């Protein structure tokens, strides 16, 4: 017979509960068949609690695990790496569970559950993740207690209480270790490359619709802290990619063959700022037009772009300086001239024809640029997030002459094509424009919805000059933000609709908390640790001193916690009733009547009563209260007070 109600009394149940719990955050990353398989295996093991003969043998287990691993291998192409490794680990744990019947198996599974928690941190390090970690830890400790309590009556509630208490006591030690444990910079060994899940963010190509899609996301791309006054909103052009090659529809970076030493002249004092970049799995770094001083371990390409040495898989912080008033590349190389003028044969003929017409019409390239921008501004062009589709081979023609509704990529693309057709070297720059300043901490948050594309044209004497055609059609986009630039009737992304009063304020709070979390917790590394120790000690300290400091602090906190658990100085180690009775015995002892070890309270009262007949009643009453309080009922303050008074009044005059 099945006795399903017995299941929660079995240790296996208390192994499965936390195991299932720590696997939940991984579910979206697991293949569908595993999301079905894992609960089945868990259910199987649960059923086997009441029907032990359902436990599979070694051969059956092998028949499950072998094909499963093969399918996993085909699914991911590897068994290493974050995603595939986690899937494999989950699978092995579920199989191990099916052959677990002993305490040591359960203990192993619980240890490995902690390991599952940490694999989740490779994907997510948010505040909710940590809250989930703490809850999981409580449940896992509860399971440890359940497995080790034997037949002792420790209820679910006391397990919960004990495990929460342990967690609370562990937190201060954890914090000290977190802050003071010596942090070693850099990885110990190279990380296995991972076919990581796609992230929202800029891609290295641009085609119609590619940026307006990105706008839908409100995810943080990076945060900026300016060392001094922040520049005006309309000069916040965060540059990341330069695209040279156009196939009629899509822009790619091509294979630039540029000046080995780009020339940059700055006309103002460089602006210094620190960027905290969210992982985007790419090498490119963002900087304001035009970066002058670059951080260590970062290369500076000849397109004035910053490149990290390896892909950014975790939060990355760097400090850069930029000139906002600058001049670059007064000399144009032959390659740049040819690449900057190149257009695909036969594509977008009307646009090309228009460009060529302007070339004949205007003498100065400057005038051509001006005319193009005026053209956008004065003709019937619309700035919209939902441009009509421009299918076919000549999307630029369709946009310029038919639909006239587009987003920044349409304007940047058509403008650049026009310039090239008019004989002006031009290229596309991809990055972000603007950012939201959080009034709570003055950090700028640049989100995916700030993604932007603009152009650079090369002009005699001036070098490469930034021209943003979007500014001509929707100046609010540049002066303020996207939301202000869109028409009132525009169907805005969800995050832009949630932008009123209270919500905006809440968003700022959350953003500030999230920022501090990222700066101080996720971003806490050897550099920050050194900074912190410097402020504490007012000088540099080495590893030995750091370890000594860590041990001392830990010892102090341990002592405090241990005192809290041991309570050696607590007078409460005896019941108040026992203390009172002790006082009573002491009083009698002073009169020469000493209670013997073998003497029960009643016998002693009898002896005392015959010794002091005058106090016989009081002595009997005191003894009665003592026996009642000690052995029968719960503490009763009124009775205790009575007893106290009686002991005080005890005369004990010899008869």
């Amino acid at each position, binding site marked *: 017979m099945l006795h399903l109600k017995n299941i929660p009394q079995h240790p296996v149940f208390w192994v499965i509960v936390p195991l299932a719990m720590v696997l939940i955050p991984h579910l979206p990353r697991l293949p569908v068949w595993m999301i079905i398989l894992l609960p089945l295996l868990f259910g199987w093991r649960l059923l086997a609690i009441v029907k032990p003969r359902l436990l599979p043998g070694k051969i059956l287990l092998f028949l499950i695990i072998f094909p499963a691993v093969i399918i996993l291998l085909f699914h991911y192409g590897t068994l290493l790496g974050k995603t595939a490794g986690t899937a494999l680990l989950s699978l092995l744990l579920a199989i191990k569970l099916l052959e677990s019947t002993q305490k*040591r198996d359960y*203990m*192993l599974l619980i*240890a*490995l559950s*902690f*390991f599952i*928690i*940490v694999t989740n*941190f*490779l994907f997510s*390090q948010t505040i909710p*993740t*940590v809250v989930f*970690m703490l809850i999981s*830890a409580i449940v896992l*400790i509860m399971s*440890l*207690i359940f*497995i*080790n*309590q*034997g*037949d*002792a*009556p*420790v209820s679910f509630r006391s397990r919960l209480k*004990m495990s929460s208490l*342990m*967690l609370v*006591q*562990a*937190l201060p*030690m*954890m914090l000290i*270790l*977190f802050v003071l*444990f010596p*942090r*070693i910079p*850099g*990885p*110990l*060994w190279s*990380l296995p490359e991972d076919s990581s899940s796609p992230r929202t963010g800029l891609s290295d190509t641009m085609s119609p619709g590619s940026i307006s899609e990105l706008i839908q996301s409100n995810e943080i791309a990076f945060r900026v802290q300016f060392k001094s006054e922040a520049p005006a909103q309309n000069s916040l052009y965060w540059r990341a990619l330069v695209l040279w090659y156009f196939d009629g529809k899509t822009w790619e970076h091509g294979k630039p063959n540029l000046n080995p030493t780009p020339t940059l002249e700055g006309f103002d004092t460089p602006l210094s700022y620190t960027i905290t970049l969210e992982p985007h799995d790419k090498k490119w770094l963002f900087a304001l037009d035009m970066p002058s001083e670059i951080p260590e371990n970062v290369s500076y390409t000849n397109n004035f772009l910053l490149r990290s040495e390896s892909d950014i898989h*975790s939060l990355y912080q760097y400090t850069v300086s930029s000139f906002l008033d600058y001049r670059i590349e007064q000399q144009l190389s032959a390659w740049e001239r040819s690449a900057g003028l190149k257009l695909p044969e036969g594509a977008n003929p009307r646009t090309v024809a228009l460009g060529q017409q302007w070339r004949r019409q205007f003498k100065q390239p400057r005038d051509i640029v001006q005319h193009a921008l005026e053209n956008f501004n004065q003709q019937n062009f619309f700035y919209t997030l939902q441009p009509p589709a421009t299918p076919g081979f000549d999307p630029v023609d369709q946009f310029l002459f038919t639909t006239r509704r587009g987003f920044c990529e349409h304007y940047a693309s058509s403008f650049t094509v026009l310039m090239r057709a008019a004989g002006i070297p031009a290229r596309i720059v991809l990055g972000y424009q603007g950012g939201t300043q959080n009034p709570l901490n003055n950090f700028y948050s640049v989100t995916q919805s700030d993604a932007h594309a603009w152009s650079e044209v090369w002009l005699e004497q001036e070098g490469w000059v930034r021209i943003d055609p979007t500014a001509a059609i929707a100046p609010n986009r540049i002066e303020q933000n996207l939301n202000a630039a869109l028409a009132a009737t525009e169907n805005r992304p969800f995050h832009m609709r949630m932008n009123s009063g209270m919500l905006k304020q809440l968003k700022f709070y959350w953003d500030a908390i999230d920022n501090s979390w990222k700066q101080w*917790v*996720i971003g*806490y*590394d050897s550099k920050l640790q050194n900074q912190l120790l410097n402020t504490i000690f007012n000088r540099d300290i080495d590893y030995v001193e750091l370890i000594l400091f860590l041990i001392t602090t830990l010892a102090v906190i*341990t002592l405090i*916690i*241990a005192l809290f*658990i*041991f309570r050696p100085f607590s007078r*409460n*180690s*005896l019941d108040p009733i026992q203390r009172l009775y002790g006082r009573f015995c002491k009083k009698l002892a002073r009169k020469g009547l000493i209670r013997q070890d073998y003497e029960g309270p009643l016998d002693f009262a009898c002896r005392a009563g015959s010794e002091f007949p005058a106090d016989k009643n009081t002595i009997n009453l005191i003894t009665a209260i003592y026996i009642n309080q*000690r*052995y029968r009922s719960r503490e009763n303050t009124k009775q205790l007070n009575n007893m106290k008074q009686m002991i005080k009044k005890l005369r004990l005059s010899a008869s």
Partner: protein
Amino acid sequence: MSNGLPLVPDFITRLIKLWAEKRLPEPDQQTTLVRRRIYILPTRHGLTFFITLLVILTGAINYENSLGFMLSFLLGSIGFLGMIYTHENLNHLTLNTATTRPVFAGQPAHFPITLSSDKKHGFMNIQFQSRNGEAVSAHLEPLAADCQVQIPLNTEQRGWLELGEFKVFTEFPLGLFHAWSWNHLNTRCLVYPKPDEHPPHFDLSSQHSGQHASEQDGYDDFAGIREYQKGDAPNHLAWKAIARTRELQTKQFHAEVGDEIILSWYALPDNMDIERKLSVLCRWVLDADHHGLKYGLQLPGTQLAAGSGRHHRHLCLKSLALFSRS
């Protein structure tokens, strides 16, 4: 787990024990486990836990993953607290002896120990293990006055059996640490000789005290059949009745009122082994008691007048148990 320690080879356990024995107080009726005598080591699970923690920490260092650091430090702190909790689960536990009940050699003796504490918190899953018995667990609930545990100890020989050194240990609450204390309590249990399974037939003719020597089979007067009870001699089983009812039955014999028998050492052959003689006498005492006879016991140097009842039986068995031992 036997009497050994986790993760420690036996010879080191013995060395630790030698050292610990010097710290044991003189055996008494009562002992309180104090810090001085509570030892603690990680268990195998503790080691697994610690290795997991190290792997997580290494991963955290390599991936520069802050939350990985956080989790490994949290686990380290919890493991450390687990050590304190486990230690505290023995600390200030007071053990008191209580009266033991005699057993026959071969049966396990049970030494009742009363647990109490001046601490208010509970003591959970405390294991007690004598030098050769199974571990038994006990727990003292929070605020409870006391509770009792019976420590089993296998018996082989008759006589007084000292509880001797026993180990009190616990792995509660997390199972990561094994805290233990070796203890010594002044308590002993009387072990009666093992009742002989094939005793020689008791020969009434050897009785000289009996007034009814002519009625040689007076002892064997068949008085009826009753259900088998533990301790009944196998040669008194009523086989016919067993075959009929399929339940164990014993033939009951009836001795005439006033019959007194003396179970005598000297009735046994001289060449019989002393222990065997005591075993046989033990069996005879049990049989005689069982049949409600008045019986006396004669041993070299000891003479117990005929009597009956539980106390008399105990006296007889005790003198057998302690024969030439004291």
